[in-house]
């Protein structure tokens, strides 16, 4: 564990100034992932900036939808009436993640920045291109049962671990970011990255930028979040599916399907959703096939392809029910 220094920010401006004054610094809120990473020497920030005093913990409603402060805890978000009523998909996804204790601590902004649970990433005795660029990827030919089947590269086959983000992807959320140059609004689709040859970068956040909020556009979707994992609770997804449907009787008017546990970011494919429009449930398997097109299995994770297809169909059917 690195011997870091620590300061506490009392405003967003102060936080940004602190970050600028301490290159390589990390913001800390709930710490539910960062503290683990510090302990195992994977995260080595020389300075931590506590942002928990910032006034970013409100959930507010406007004509444009709902705005969620970056410091709203996963628990508060999941149980908030606005979310439960209008975005039950998001509430389901949040409650499928972690444990009650962790959800009480973990924040919305922090959840967006969760790092992969790839075994090798967490063990500094092993090579890992994400942790130590250029060192190699033992997962390619090693214990890759939990790894990516879509969008991976020869440099990294890690998957994004968040449940919340899979729902946000289906809901077309926007991440609001503050930098010293001003505010940025990043669509969730563009927030996380595929590994390519820079797997060390999980997302497109600039150094020193601070997530202040997540915005959800108004929706009228019937949602369902299905998470498949190795035990009934407190395990990361092998495959998860966030679906949202608008139905006219049996006919699909709008569809969203996002996958978790299969790629370096929550996975969506417009063509698969387009395919469903104007169709009934008979088209669900074809949409599933299309979403998994091009999936590339590794030695131990080929099952994820079939599992994902079946999970997509099940989630869509459950949303219809």
């Amino acid at each position, binding site marked *: *564990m*690195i*011997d870091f220094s620590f300061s506490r920010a009392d405003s967003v401006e102060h936080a940004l100034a602190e970050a600028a004054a301490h290159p390589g610094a990390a913001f800390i809120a709930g710490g539910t992932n960062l503290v683990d990473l510090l*302990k*195992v*020497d994977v995260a080595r920030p020389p300075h931590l900036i506590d942002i928990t005093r910032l006034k970013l913990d409100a959930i507010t409603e406007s004509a444009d939808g709902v705005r969620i402060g970056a410091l709203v805890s996963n628990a508060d978000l999941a149980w908030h009436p606005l979310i439960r009523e209008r975005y039950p998909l998001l509430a389901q996804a949040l409650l499928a993640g972690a444990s009650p204790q962790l959800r009480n601590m973990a924040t919305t902004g922090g959840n967006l920045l969760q790092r992969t*649970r790839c*075994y*090798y990433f*967490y*063990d*500094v*005795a*092993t090579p890992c291109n994400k942790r130590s660029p250029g060192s190699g990827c*033992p997962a390619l*030919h*090693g*214990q890759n*049962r*939990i790894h990516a089947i879509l969008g991976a590269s020869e440099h990294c086959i890690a998957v994004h671990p968040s449940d919340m983000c899979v729902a946000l992807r289906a809901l077309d959320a926007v991440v609001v970011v503050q930098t010293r140059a001003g505010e940025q609004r990043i669509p969730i689709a563009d927030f996380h990255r595929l590994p390519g040859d820079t797997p060390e970068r999980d997302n497109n956040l600039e150094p020193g930028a601070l997530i202040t909020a997540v915005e959800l556009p108004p929706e009228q979707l019937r949602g369902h979040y299905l998470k*498949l994992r*190795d*035990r*009934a*609770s*407190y*395990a*990361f997804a*092998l495959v998860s599916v966030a679906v949202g449907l608008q139905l006219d009787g049996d006919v699909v008017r709008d569809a969203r399907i996002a996958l978790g546990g299969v790629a370096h970011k929550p996975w969506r494919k417009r063509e698969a959703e387009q395919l469903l429009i104007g169709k009934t449930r008979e088209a669900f398997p074809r949409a599933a096939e299309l979403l998994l097109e091009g999936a590339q299995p590794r030695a131990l994770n080929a*099952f994820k392809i*079939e*599992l994902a297809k*079946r*999970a997509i*169909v*099940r989630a869509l059917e459950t949303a219809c029910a």
Partner: protein
Amino acid sequence: MRLIGQPIRRVDGPLKVRGDAKYAAEASQDGLLHGYVISSAITRGKIEKIDVSAAQLDGVRLILTHENRPHLPWFDKKYKDDDARAGSPFRPLYDGKVRFAAQPVALVVADTLELARHAASLVKIAYSAEEHEADLHAQREQGHAPKEPQAPPQSRGDADRALARSALRVHAEYAVPAEHHNPMECHASTVLYGEDGALTIYDKTQGPQNSQQYVCNVFGLKPEQVRVLAPFVGGAFGSGLRPQYQLNLAVMAARELKQSVRVALTRQQMFSFGHRPHTLQRVSLGARGDGKLTAVVHEALAETSRFEDYSENVVNWSGMLYQCDDVKLVYELADLDVFTPLDMRAPGATLGLFALESALDELAHLAGVDPVQLRLINYAERDQVKDKPFSSKALRECYAEGAARFGWSERNPSPRSMQRDGQLIGWGMATGVWEALSQATSARAVLALDGTLTISTSTTDIGTGTYTILAQIAAETAGVPLEKVRVELGDSSLPKAPLQGGSWTAASAGAAVQQVCQQLRAELDKGPPSKELHFEVTSEPDKERQGQYSSATHSAVFAEVAVDPQLGTLQVTRVVSAIAGGRILNPKTARSQIEGAVVWGIGMATHEHSRMDGALGRYVNHDFSEYHIPVQADVREIDVIFVDEQDDVVSPLGVKGLGEIGIVGVAAAIANAVFHATGKRIRELPITLDKLL
């Protein structure tokens, strides 16, 4: 007053609930220093250079490596402990060789844990790595007989010939991966350094006297200079049967610095020593058309380290549990670049019975005989391995009472025939068995004039309820109110006791406490005492009488699973465990033992898997995020039955011990239920959803 057999609450419960029960890493002292272990980054090879210059920060007191360690003895026997096996025990920091992944290669001692941990990250170690082999599958053909087997396999008759002539035959291979004990409390040792150099050590152990003897032998100390305490142990399950390396390192550092030192391992480091060995098994059963066994062949290949032959009794159960005259048993080891495996709850039996009881289920299906009926057809009235009668065996009652409670008679024998809410429902069962052992144990009873009775013996309470049952036995036997009884355990200075393992503590320490309290009672019967009374005994098992019999605990385990037919998700919805465990001293703590073991059985069947990366030679899922054990949501109904079983041979109290039996057979019952639900026979644990797609 009758106290034995009553559901008394744990006498140490309030201390634990209040946080007043202190564990090995909680003992403290002003000026206590903190050690942090540096774990090897390679699996096999040698350390070329250790550069500690960047780590010499203010407050860092010592960086111990093989280059600057104190003199240590050369002979293996100095490092042997009560649970050591044939070979050379691992010696921390003895030389620059690396023998297994995450081997301790240095200890950084500093004023605070955080500083020690930080400084450890600044130590630069250059290794030269050598080729390693840590994958059992790659060594399948390299099996050899163990040098000193725990239980030499005892074949009888001519099983190969009998098998060839059998009307029905089942051949199958089963595999259980390496699993790590992972008690809640990580291993830790706090060494308090006395002015005269005497050491008071709070150690995580299942045998304070074992740790004491080890420290004396390694460091050339006299027993009176070393006192080891383990008053509370946060689970151990076998991981505390041998002194682990943090003890050696903490003592080494304390003696070098002449100061008190604590070394606590991280959860990741809990994957760097003993474990249940990855084991491959082949079972062949031959039977008549009606299911009567005509041949049993059980062969096992288990991993061990290159420096010790760890062996356990995996296959002998297959010669004991069912009546059959032609039995072939083979048990071999393959040497790998891993740490030596270690006894883990019901060592050997959990593995062997998974294979045997799965194979029995395969035979039941093939023969078209009900699985319970098949076991009754082949019921062993006599232990054919030892060629002795059982001192008691209420296994028939386990089958009958377990089946009745479970509702087994409602079972449709066809796979995939039962459904509920869109889920496939499966019912499976299996038998469990474990030895009923006892060992010589000493105990002391001191009755003060104020009426307080203090009972002491050096054995531990690893969470099993030892404090409580000993208090019950003492109070009832001596005729003293329960609230006047104090029990002292977990201290090497107390009367001699063996390791707490093998399920023998209740029988052994119980016998000693009963005996010493009988002496006290006899004195009290003469009239009210005028001075403090003091008795000490050593209770020895009646070897001659017990030697005429075979003694074992048995169980019948019934499991229900629900499997999603499309998604493969598996839920163990119900387990009934019927136990024949002799006399039950405390139904409350006994039930808790069995329930905990069933939960572990669910974990073994569906979750636990220490994932070895063969290329790196490391277990890669070494934390609780990725090494899965059941959470509350995985555990539904567990019903425990203790059938009536009288046994006046096995131990003076008629006690057989319950520490291990609860887990044996659970994984097989679940795997058999999965077959019944899905028609899929999963022979390699854990049963994860990908195997059921």
